[in-house]
Structures are given as C-alpha cells and as structure tokens.
C-alpha cells in the first residue's frame, strides 16, 4: 500500500505540475510495454533468428557438442529441395490439408444449416455435442481415436462388422497408409468442424430471414437460396475460415505422432513429423531448420491472406 502514498496525486493537476511530470510520463508507456516486449522478442523472435541462421549451417550432434559453427551457405536448401522424400511429404501435407479443409467446410456448413432449421431441442442437443468435441484437447482426440480404431478391441471395427459394412474384426487401420490417412482425416475433421459450424451458424443469424423468405416466395429452392443469398453474404467469413483451417490442418504434429507416428513405412509422415524426425531423432538440426523455414514461409503467406480477408470483412 506504500506505493499509493508515494505516488504524486494527479487530481486537478495545474499545468505547471503536469509539465514537470512530463519526462516520467513519457517513459511510462514504454515501461509498461517492456515486459511484453522482452517476452515476445526473447522467446519468439530470437528462436526465429536462430532457425534462420541454422538453416545456413551444418549443425549435427558433433557440432552441437563441440560448439562449432560451420557455415555452408545454401547447401541445406539444396539438399532439402533435391530430397525425393521432401517432395513426397510436401504435396502429401498440402493434399491432406486440402481434403480436411474441404470436408470441414462442407460438413460445417451442413451442421450450421441444420442448426438453423432444427427445433429448439435438437439445436441445443447438436450445439452441446459440437461444443464437447470442440473443447476436447487435440492430444486427447488423438489418443481416443487411436482407441476407437484399435484393431482388436476398437469399437469402430465392432460396429462396422455388426452393421455388415465390412468384415473388419482384427482389421488394422494403421497397417495401410491410405486407411491410416482416413483415420487421420476423420480425427482432424471431427476436431475442426465444431468451430466452423458454430461460426457459420452465427453468420447465418446475421442474415435477415426476410431475404430467404422473399426468395422462397419467388420460387427459389434451398440450393438457390444458398448460392444466391447465403454464399455472397458469408463469403468473407468463408475466406477467413478457409485460411484458418488450412493453417491449422497443415500443423498436425500431435494428431499424427500420437496415432501413426508417421507409419506405416513413413507413409503418413507430414511436414511437422518430418522436421521432428530429421531434427530430434537424427540430430540434423541444420536440415530440419531449413524445412522449418520453408514451412514458416508457406504458413506466413497463408496468414497474410488471412489478414487480407479480415481487412476485407472489416470494410
């Protein structure tokens, strides 16, 4: 409480007093910003700088232990960009993200339209279920899906076999890259739909019901109403949701690592896992940083699109 007494009183400050306070006053906002600046710069910009400089160095375990720095110019970039596996992993990551984003937006839109059309009780039920899925942490979603799709005792194999969809008792979803991908897509889409669905639903509520009503009177069907009224009005929202989803679905390290670990036979390795394997498992810190730089550049350009979409919506 001593600080309060020590502080000079501002009350009805005469002009001269105010001027005398000036130097301190001027440094106050900077002082208040100092902790945040230190936090952000030391723990975010410094690693970014380290990552950039590492991408131009040969840095393996021996270099790390002996503290030697060997600059190799663009060699890491040459190695990575001529690495056949990198050219498998990159399109795979982007393709995976594209499939997930597409499914998320379609299912999310479907859920939003259903929420709008449903009775009150059904709407409450679906939104509660969506919030439950949304609130589930990514890592928990991943371990639970691994359990759902367990080859021996997983409930999915049991349900699919009992329903006659397939004879998949003892079927291992993670033994084949394509079915492993199917599980990963299901996991990511399950986690991503709630946010998208509830955002689109909130967007739908901002559209005056009279518009759709008028169109219906003029004989427009639901598809026409969506294409001609809802889509044009919600386009900025869709732009934002698309960019955010692409960014999120490109960064899927926990989902992959906790289910397939990149297997079988490296078949589900995506950029995040590749960086981990190269950097942490093989101690090729230089090459791993190079991949990380490329990934950062890719995601930053996407974020730039996001900011533009935000600005367009604000307009």
């Amino acid at each position: 409480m001593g600080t309060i007494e020590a502080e000079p009183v501002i009350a009805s400050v005469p002009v001269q007093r105010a001027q005398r306070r000036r130097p301190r006053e001027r440094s106050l906002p900077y002082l208040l910003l100092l902790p945040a600046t230190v936090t952000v710069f030391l723990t975010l910009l410094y690693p970014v700088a380290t990552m950039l400089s590492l991408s131009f160095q040969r840095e393996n375990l021996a270099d790390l232990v002996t503290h030697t720095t060997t600059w190799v110019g663009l060699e890491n970039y040459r190695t990575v960009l001529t690495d056949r596996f990198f050219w498998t992993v990159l399109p795979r990551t982007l393709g995976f993200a594209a499939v997930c984003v597409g499914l998320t937006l379609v299912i999310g839109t479907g859920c939003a339209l259903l929420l709008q059309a449903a009775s009150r009780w059904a709407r409450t039920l679906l939104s509660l279920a969506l919030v439950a899925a949304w609130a589930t942490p990514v890592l928990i979603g991943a371990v639970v899906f691994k359990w759902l799709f367990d080859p021996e005792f997983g409930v999915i194999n049991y349900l699919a076999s009992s329903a006659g969809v397939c004879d998949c008792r003892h079927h291992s979803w993670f033994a084949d890259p394509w079915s492993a991908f199917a599980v990963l897509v299901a996991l990511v889409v399950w986690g991503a739909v709630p946010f998208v669905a509830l955002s689109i639903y909130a967007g739908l509520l901002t559209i005056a019901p009279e518009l759709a009503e008028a169109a219906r009177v003029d004989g427009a069907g639901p598809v026409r109403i969506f294409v001609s009224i809802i889509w044009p009005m919600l386009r900025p929202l869709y732009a934002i949701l698309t960019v955010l989803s692409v960014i999120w679905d490109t960064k899927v390290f926990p989902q992959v690592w906790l289910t397939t670990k990149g297997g079988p036979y490296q078949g589900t390795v995506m950029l995040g896992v590749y960086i981990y394997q190269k950097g942490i498992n093989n101690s090729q810190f230089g090459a791993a940083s190079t991949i990380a730089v490329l990934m950062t550049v890719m995601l930053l350009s996407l974020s730039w699109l996001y900011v533009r979409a935000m600005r367009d919506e604000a307009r």
Partner: protein
Amino acid sequence: MRATGLTATVAGRRRLVDGSCVVLALIFVFPVYWMASTALKADRDIVSYTPQFVPWPIDLSNLRQVLGDDTFWHALRSSLLVTVAVVVAGTVVALSAAVSLARFRFRGRAGFVLALIIVQMIPGEALFIPYYLMLRNLGLLGHLTGLMLVYLSFTVPFTVWMLRGFVAAIPVELEEAAAIDGASRWQTFWRILFPLVAPGLLATSIFAFITAWTEFTYAYVLINDPANYPLPVYIQSFIGRDSTAYGPQMAVATLFTLPVIAFFLVVQRRAVAGMSAGAIKG
C-alpha cells in the same frame, strides 16, 4: 386438402432435420463419451471383443489405479506449475502492455501493434528445433522453466491483443473522474480499471490456461525427463511399442479433459449470448 398436405411435408421436413441433428450430435459426442465410459469400466470389459456400451456397474479400478500412481501426481504437479505460472505471469505482462497501448499515445505504438500481429502468425510448430537447441545450450532442456517461457511467448501476443480491446472499451472518463477526486495513477488503475477489465482477464486467463494445459508438441520435445513430464506427455506414455494401456490412459484423459470442458462452457456461454443478441437484431 392442399393445406394439410403442406403441413404434413413441413412437419416431415422438420422431423428429418431434427433426426439429422440427433445423428450428428451422436457422432460428435461419441469419442468423448467413449473416453469417459472406458474410464469407468473394468479391464475385462475394455479388452473384450464385444464392447460394453454402457459402463454399468461402474468400475473405478482404472481411476483408482491412476490416482494411486505417483507418476500421475508428479505430472499433475508439473502441469499445474506450468499452467499457473503462464496464466499469472502472462496476465501481468499482457495487462500492463494492454493499458499502455490503449491509454497512451506514444511513438512506436503503431509499430508495436503491427509487430504483435506479425508475431502471432509465426507457426509454433516450425520452431521446436531452435527452442530445443536454445534450451539445451542453457541447460534448461527437461526443465519446466523452458516450457513456461515457450508457452508465455505463445499466449502473450494474443492476450495483449484481446486485453487491449477490453481496456479501450472502458470509458476513459471514469478514470479521469477518479483522478479529479484525488486518486493516484495506481489507485485509478487498481480501483477503477482493474475491476472493469476483470471479465476480460477471465477470458484471457482461460485462453492461457487451455493453451498451456493442453499443449503437446513442445512438452513432448522439450521435457525428456520422466520426473518432469506434464500431463500431456504422461498421457502419451501409456502408448507402448506393441500395445496401449487404454484403461488407465482413458481414466487420465477424462480427468485431464474435465476442467477444460468446464472452462470452455464458461467462455462459450458468453459467446452464445453474443450470438443470440445478434439473432434478435435480425
């Protein structure tokens, strides 16, 4: 005739819509339900070719096993330490920055705001190699301090951004009135601004809590000492080379998720209120 036919199709359509909602709700909630129900089953019902859909009679053996495990309590302690540190330090750091940005005009202000936006776009997933090396050089690899710093840097930019909005929304006249009545700067802040910005602090604290509590990648990469495992890494540790101990894993997962869902509902209710406010306008 035509009128009743129309009513019938409308009712039929409504039933179809409601039915689809129920099916979708079941699909979305099922993984969560299956996690919780597995946590409440005996091992013989978990490792069984005919799954037991309702965990009845409730069996607490897996929960009891986890709660009797010292590793669980160590992991809980690590997670709480990191989370509380991030929430408290993050709030202090971010609130002071937010007040500075919202209440003062000074050179470099616009630049700082721009930097804040750019910094938020840096993907954390690409940065674990430099963090790993930095903390290794500092001898902090495996220590929770390193993890706290990483999570702070992830949460502070967004928290400053959010709080700046909350502070700016409070009329500055209130503070001026207090100043005229003889309150010091500190008193104005503590007695006027702070209580008014408290809802914003609750929201940002929940955001920081959820981020720090549930983050997996960095916890996994940076904490290699089992004695310091936070809960996410502990949950991962049930995955064995050949098989996974699903019973205890789902028990921990359930305990781990409960506070997240609870906090989520606190924020969500306000978000839904906002949504319905928008609905009335339409």
